[in-house]
């Protein structure tokens, strides 16, 4: 069975600080990897997806994610966070069947 582990449940940062959210998965085969973001009071929106190719995925608003196959990881990074990045971030993995989500990391950015 596939599973996803997110290292931090809550992260509090000041604006302009750098961000790295850890995500590890367990699954023996080929996976599709995702990061979803849920802004306060809103639904989940896709931030990244990784299916194959360049393991460094660049997204909107300066976010990027890196797939490291040997570490079964797909960490999310941003060099300088903004107050508007306050949200819940979910890592997800799709192996054989359905999409499995991690428990989420609540990021709070103080101005």
């Amino acid at each position, binding site marked *: 069975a596939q599973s996803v582990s997110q290292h931090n449940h809550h992260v509090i940062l000041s604006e302009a600080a750098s961000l790295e959210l850890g995500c590890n998965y367990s699954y023996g085969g080929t996976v*599709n990897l*995702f990061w*979803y973001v*849920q802004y306060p009071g*809103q*639904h*989940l*929106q*896709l931030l990244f*997806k990784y*299916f194959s190719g360049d393991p460094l995925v660049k997204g909107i608003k300066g976010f990027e994610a890196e797939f490291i196959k040997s570490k079964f990881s797909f960490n999310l990074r941003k060099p300088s966070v903004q107050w508007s990045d306050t949200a*819940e971030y*979910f890592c997800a993995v*799709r192996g054989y*069947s*359905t*999409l*499995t*989500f991690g*428990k*989420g990391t*609540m990021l709070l950015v103080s101005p």
Partner: protein
Amino acid sequence: DTAVSQTPKYLVTQMGNDKSIKCEQNLGHDTMYWYKQDSKKFLKIMFSYNNKELIINETVPNRFSPKSPDKAHLNLHINSLELGDSAVYFCASSQDGQGQGANVLTFGAGSRLTVL
């Protein structure tokens, strides 16, 4: 037009009642899902339907019954509601296949169910 729309957005009801949440997608996707997000924001798959056929049914009480009249709709009916059913229920859809959009879930805005 909203891609995945759920109704109602909020639902407050008493224990023991029966309620339904409706979901419609206009994306032409083949697969639809129901996820439950609890108070700790944990997202858990409940059901998945592909072209009106149930393909995933996680460990969910049989008080929960999904119904898919066609591939654009997946409704969730809940009987004998319990306090623990209070959560936000998200509908989602995805396209099968190998293209860039495949396997990417598009979520609805969620339906917040409160059982008193």
